[in-house]
């Protein structure tokens, strides 16, 4: 039963990744990660 839920969660996760990729979220994450995060380094 627990494994069934794990597989369901995994399939939902794959669907979320797919929707996210289709709406351009990979590019958004990429652009954010390519620039220095001023908050992370303590400038703000």
């Amino acid at each position: 039963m627990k494994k069934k839920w794990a597989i369901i969660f995994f399939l939902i996760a794959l669907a979320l990744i797919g929707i996210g990729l289709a709406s351009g979220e990979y590019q958004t994450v990429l652009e954010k990660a390519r620039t220095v995060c001023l908050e992370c380094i303590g400038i703000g």
Partner: protein
Amino acid sequence: MTDIQKRRRWFQVLGAAAANVWLPSFFKGRIYQGPTKGICVPVLNCYSCPSAVFACPIGALQHSLGSVKLNLSLARIEFGLYVVGSLAAVGSLIGRIPCGWLCPFGLLQELIHKIPSRKFQIPKVLTYGKYLTLFVLVILLPLFILDEFGGGEPWFCKWICPTGTLEAGIPLALLSGTIRARLGFLFAWKMAVLAGFLAWMVFVMRPFCRTTCPLGAILGLFNKASLFRMTVDEETCTLCGQCQNECPIDLKIYESPNSPDCIRCLKCEKVCPFGSIGHNFFSCSNPRKNEDKEAIR
């Protein structure tokens, strides 16, 4: 150190190296900007570390949530589903294994804890702090405290994350005079937070993972429903407590084999004198009798 713990240490070292493989960036004084930077990996590794080649999922999640209102105003449908899906995919397969086997900050905490000193455990109530961090600093504040343009801030990265200070703040401050010139109160605050955690690590095993880490909180939620599962044989377990003595998180695995706090380092499996503790992954074997039983006997 048992064979599996030696293997785990190698995984931790390789995980840290793989996440920060682009060392030439240190000499150039700027961060890596290649295409892999859009991939969220399930470890706490700051994407502003010059050599980091992947995205930090917690930083990316805060940025995504902080941009929801702005994106809606621009008719862009982006809700951070890619980041959430990436974490859920890993969580549903293996739960918190990345915490115990891959996370560079987890490795650092284990190494610093080797410094000889009196060792302490932490009160159970502090372990709920990571959920508070997750819901308040990572989700609620970035979503609802917005600037004049409708954007939210990464509150956890800004005020707490010691990984960002250690891996990105300090190296970039050393490498760039421009950044050095802009450092002020926030940097001093973050250095104090980092120093506090580093000191805490000497006396307590993995204090950041146990009390604060929002990534551990997310992955831990999947421990009870992941394909990888810890098992305890009720018939052979004598409740001798040797597993708890060895456990870096001080868990009673015989009470809750798939506790959200378990980082699945598998130390308990090897130390059990009766071979009562095991694990399975996608196997068709029947789970042991007391799997996930919260309190036995």
